């Protein structure tokens, strides 16, 4: 008697698609062409890194160092004051953002996984139309729903700030999570599902015991994607929360564009704090981050 787990067949791992092809060889030795190629690549590298230099240098400058003529120089007196001020200003918002990002990413991923499974492997008439209708939600400008959304949030008496934002990130995360999971599940071998069907497993059973265990790579991609986009969101934050109960992007914007005198050092230290979590994710889990980017391009 066959059981559900006899075939340890796994679908293609989620690849970032960027690794060089097998046949490609790296030419040896220096030619004029290759030297030129390096020169251009390094020049671009330096240009891309200019803002990073400015961020770091300015965040360590005291108010005395702020003279325009020395804008690009290293600090004369290194100080951590900006970092302390920025941390005090942003820490509560960073904590709120964590509370917002974690549940919304988990729920959106779970819903996307179920949808992706149904749309890829348990097809029905009109499945493609349903998929396209869901997908459209990814592209709409949210400006086109914010006014009635505002009414709806008031009517439902949703608590302003993080709870409302969780709901919105779940709802508007569904299209992309569905897309990523659907594309992934389409690579699951047919035999795996068939075997489960022959064993008499229904749809839910197939999902829970065949599909879910092999979904880990896709979950990683989706969770990273949802984490990053919710962490970096500003549009919903500015419309549906206030500086007292909003996420870090709103707090940073208020810090940097506040009515008080402009202190670039503090703003830049704050920008670094606000970017650190997504940058760490990018550095540590880069392959999966890129996997999410690629799925966002709707190619399959």
């Amino acid at each position, binding site marked *: 008697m066959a059981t559900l787990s006899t075939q340890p067949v796994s679908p293609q791992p989620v690849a970032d698609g*960027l*690794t060089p*092809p097998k*046949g*490609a*060889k*790296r030419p040896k030795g220096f030619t004029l062409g290759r030297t030129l*190629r390096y020169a*251009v690549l390094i020049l671009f*590298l330096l240009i891309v*890194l200019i*803002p990073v230099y400015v*961020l770091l240098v300015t965040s360590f400058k005291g108010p005395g160092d702020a003279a*325009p*003529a020395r*804008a*690009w120089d290293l600090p004369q007196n290194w100080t951590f004051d900006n970092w302390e001020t920025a941390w005090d200003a942003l820490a509560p918002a960073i904590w709120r953002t964590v509370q917002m990002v974690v549940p919304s990413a988990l729920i959106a991923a779970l*819903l996307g996984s*179920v949808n992706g499974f*149904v749309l890829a492997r348990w097809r*029905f*008439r*009109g499945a*493609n139309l349903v998929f*396209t*209708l*869901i997908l459209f939600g990814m*592209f*709409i*400008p*949210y*400006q*086109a*729903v*914010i*006014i*009635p959304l505002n009414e709806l949030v008031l009517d439902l008496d949703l608590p302003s700030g993080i709870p409302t934002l969780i709901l*919105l990130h*779940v709802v508007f995360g569904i299209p992309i999570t569905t897309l990523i999971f659907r594309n992934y599940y389409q690579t699951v071998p047919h035999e795996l599902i068939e075997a489960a069907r022959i064993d008499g497993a229904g749809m*839910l059973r197939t999902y829970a015991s065949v599909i879910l265990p092999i979904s880990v790579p896709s979950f990683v991609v989706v969770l990273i994607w949802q984490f990053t986009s919710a962490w*970096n969101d*500003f549009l919903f934050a500015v*419309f549906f929360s206030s500086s007292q109960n909003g996420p870090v*992007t709103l707090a*940073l*914007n208020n810090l*940097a*564009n506040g009515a008080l005198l402009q202190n670039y050092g503090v703003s*830049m230290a*704050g*920008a670094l704090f606000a*970017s650190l979590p*997504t*940058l760490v994710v990018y550095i540590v889990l880069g392959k999966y981050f*890129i996997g999410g*980017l*690629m799925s*966002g391009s*709707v*190619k399959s």
Partner: protein
Amino acid sequence: MTKALKRAGAPLLLLAPSLILVGIFVYGLIAVNFGTSATDIHTAAQTTGREPSGTVWFDNYLDLLGSEAFQHSLKNLLLYTVLFLAGTLLIGFVWAWLLESPIKGEGIFRAVYLFPMAVSFVASGVVWRWLLNSGQDESATGLNRLFQMVGLDFMQNNWWNNVDYGITAIAIPAIWQLSGYVMALFLAGFRGIPYELREAARVDGATTWQLYRHVLFPQLSPIALSALIIIGHMSLKSFDLIMSISKPANYQTKVPAVDMYIFKSSFDYANAAAVGSILLVIVALVVVPYLIRTNRKEK
């Protein structure tokens, strides 16, 4: 009949939570938004129901499209989108091309080019606000000061403070942030081309340039289209960067998304909804044909 229903029943039940949410929050709210845009709810009093409001049908749209201020926003949006698209596609493509054949340190170049994508527009806006500071000569900071230091004084300018072309300055950080994404798309495109194709071309005596021009580039057009749609629709929705670099109150850099925020802030719900609908129509004109095409090709 019942059999068909039974077949579709279970899948639909599993999809139900998402379908209901997307149905309400996307399609339902879009419909309500069109409704609001056809009313005369322009004040806080009307918004809270203390004063009656009526239906004016398309008057808000006609007023908006006829007003000099909104035309300025649309012109800004067009300028911004053209520059943003041209910049990211060109730079992204060049990067991918440079990295396409194996090279030492590819991973480092890729990682650095792509990292701005992981940063929020608000955070990058903080540093670009400083870089695009309009102070010149004595008071120059940012890029203007950098130009002075390397002897390119003539390149100093007032960036986003120019009324006619200021918006193009905001496209610079946008290009900085997304060129790496376009690079990743094109690089995946290059890498997806079977290697035998190159070898075959080599055997046939093609030069490197001929190989690219006639064999590899033509294969990348679907990628270019994807990139065009993705960057294009992001551009049409641009909001965060403008808010954090030039603040919404600045006429120079306003676009419809910013207008929508200002209308909403002043409780002019009818005009805010109308601007939202106009944006939706513009985006849909770009995206819907693309979605239909992708959907067809999959069969």
